[in-house]
């Protein structure tokens, strides 16, 4: 099984993430095992997916609306957000919406073009799990959590901005 970072540890990943076929069609769902399905599959095969004996997760692509799963969150064991490219920053906003607006408390995972240099910001925005792209050293990437010792802004990780936490000089 592949290694991922979860809650600042390197662990094996029990989940299988299903991706759309290159022609955009949906792949078959294995009869058992924990799967993370694309949003289109969740929308199209909702009842069959719920009827499976294993855990279920869903993943959003960077253009998809977190509101589309807001009512269903209690059914998922994990929510993942895809970063098709390193520079595509939509997933940061999606994560904050899932955490701060829709109240998702479970595993929030960043997948796609992910490597150590995004981890600090991703973590600030509420991601607690990371599937690094192929070839990245997960152990080495753990260092990214301490790239910075603090941050000015309010975020999921630090709801109070620095100015509400500073000790008066």
């Amino acid at each position, binding site marked *: 099984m592949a290694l991922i970072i979860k809650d600042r540890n390197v662990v094996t990943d029990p989940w299988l993430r299903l991706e759309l076929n290159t022609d955009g069609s949906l792949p078959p769902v294995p009869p058992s095992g924990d799967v993370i399905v694309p949003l289109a599959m969740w929308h199209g095969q909702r009842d069959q997916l719920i009827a499976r004996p294993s855990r279920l997760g869903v993943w959003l692509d960077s253009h998809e609306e977190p509101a589309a799963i807001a009512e269903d969150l209690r059914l998922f064991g994990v929510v993942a957000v895809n970063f098709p490219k390193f520079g595509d920053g939509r997933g*940061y906003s999606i994560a904050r919406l899932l955490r701060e607006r829709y109240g998702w408390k479970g595993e929030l995972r960043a997948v796609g073009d992910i490597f150590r240099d995004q981890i600090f910001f991703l973590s600030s925005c509420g991601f607690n799990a990371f599937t690094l792209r192929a070839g990245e050293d997960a152990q080495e990437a753990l260092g990214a959590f301490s790239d910075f*010792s603090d941050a*000015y*802004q309010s975020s999921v990780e630090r709801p109070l901005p620095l*100015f509400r936490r500073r000790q008066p000089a």
Partner: protein
Amino acid sequence: MYRYDEIDQRLVDERVAQFRDQTRRFLAGKLSEDDFRPLRLRNGLYIQRYAPMLRVAIPYGLLSSRQLRTLAHIARKWDRGYGHFSTRQNIQYNWPKLEDVPDILAELAKVEMHAIQTSGNSVRNITTDHYAGVAQDEIVDSFVWCELLRQWSTFHPEFSFLPRKFKIAVNGAEADRAAIFLHDIGLQAVRDKGGAGSDGASPGGEVGFRVIVGGGMGRTPIIGHVFREFLPWPHLLTYLEAIMRVYNRYGRRDNIHKARIKILVKARTPEKFREEVEAEWAHLKDRPSTLTEEEVRRVEERFTRPQYESQAGDDAGHLARLAAEPAFAAWTKRNVLPHKAPGYAAVTLSLKKTGVPPGDATADQMDAIAGLADRYSQGELRVSHEQNLILADVRQSDLHVLWGEAKALGLASPNIGMITNIIACPGGDFCSLANAKSIPVAQAIQERFDSLDYVYDIGELDLNISGCQNSCGHHHVGHIGILGVDKNGEEWYQISVGGNQGLTRPGAPAAVGKVIGPSFSQEQIPDVIEKLIGIYLEKRESEAERFIDVVWRIGIEPFKERVYGTHHQRQERRNRSLAAA
């Protein structure tokens, strides 16, 4: 100056360490060029035509003499002995080596400076009026608000990978000296005078901001739209976050030329976009990012303030010297601005000497200017977006001796606001994006207009040159704008008239210039400019009517005719050339 506290300093130091590690991994082949690019860009490092270019942030253009000496030291040690002050109030070095950049950043960190977010698709250096804190028409001291925004935008976790770069300008005075209608977000400080604010809650005299969204230059110049006439200051950050979240989620990422917020605002219409922002803001309003009085006061108090001696009024000796020496009076008229403190003045040191690329300063000049700042202006100075340096707190009684020293340093060209105070990007001599050179064009114009009497007769005129559509030289808002264009591999120049950077005086709003016609070769430019000036001088009703006022009054057709001939002549010329072909 804002003085860092221990956390501000630690974050900048951590950034240096982070970038040192990223550079090490890149040089060791562990990071690909594609992966390293966005990382180095957010530290101001471009790979340019001849070498890397490093852009160092000068937050809102404010510098101490100590910082300027460090900039001089960097120019000497790691570059070729000079730097280029840019239109975003930053400084650029054109010759550093990639492997030296971590050391340069470490040197900067020692004097509370950095290169954070000076490029890349993030919030860039916040710019403002270079007369902040000293102007007679001040509403608020915009530096305080700029510093609050600097902290908020530095390493913002949600908005560090935007569709495109994002520029915010703040103006704290009556006159707009920050081009707020030509930024992704422009903020105009407003004091609510008549009792309740637009939210019905703020008492009279409260500070708020007019929020302008979706302006910009570049390939598609657009004047920004007012989203809020009066946003009470506590809501500043949450409202900006609402705008940026809508942009981050829906801005185009498929085409770099259509990725700025102005394109999204236009595509959705300003009304719809504003509704989306307001809907988002309904969720963010009153959340922890809401600014507090304690925080505004804390930031205010971390600024060192100039100490003014109380003076009754204008200095008598200064007035006498003005009357006695016309050359000193001319310099004072053009390069010295009255100050809100009686007996003081703000002095512009011109970096526009003929023959020198606009905005360039040598290391020796920087050291010398640092000395001037220490002796005459309480150790501080500002960079203007017109690429000059400002000593903002000079005693009137010191002006004459300062003038003498500035002249000796080649910094006293008495041309601020005049045609020869050209704003120009580095252009094709340095920049790999440029279609054409800008510096030789600026020089040729300065040489043509070398008679000061003539320059003064022409009066106030902004002439801006950009080497390409990215419009770093702000050509769209020049009263005369010159744009380098590429035609089959040759360098040509397109000319526009009628642009204006902002509401610098009543009745003269921000405007985008109109192109007068087909482009010209480099050699033709001085003649063309002279023709434009010629028609202006003929048509103006008085000396008080500026070039831009005449363009707006009579339209561009007379200017076109002077340059290209009448419509009839143009038609005939076309027919002749068709017949010959």
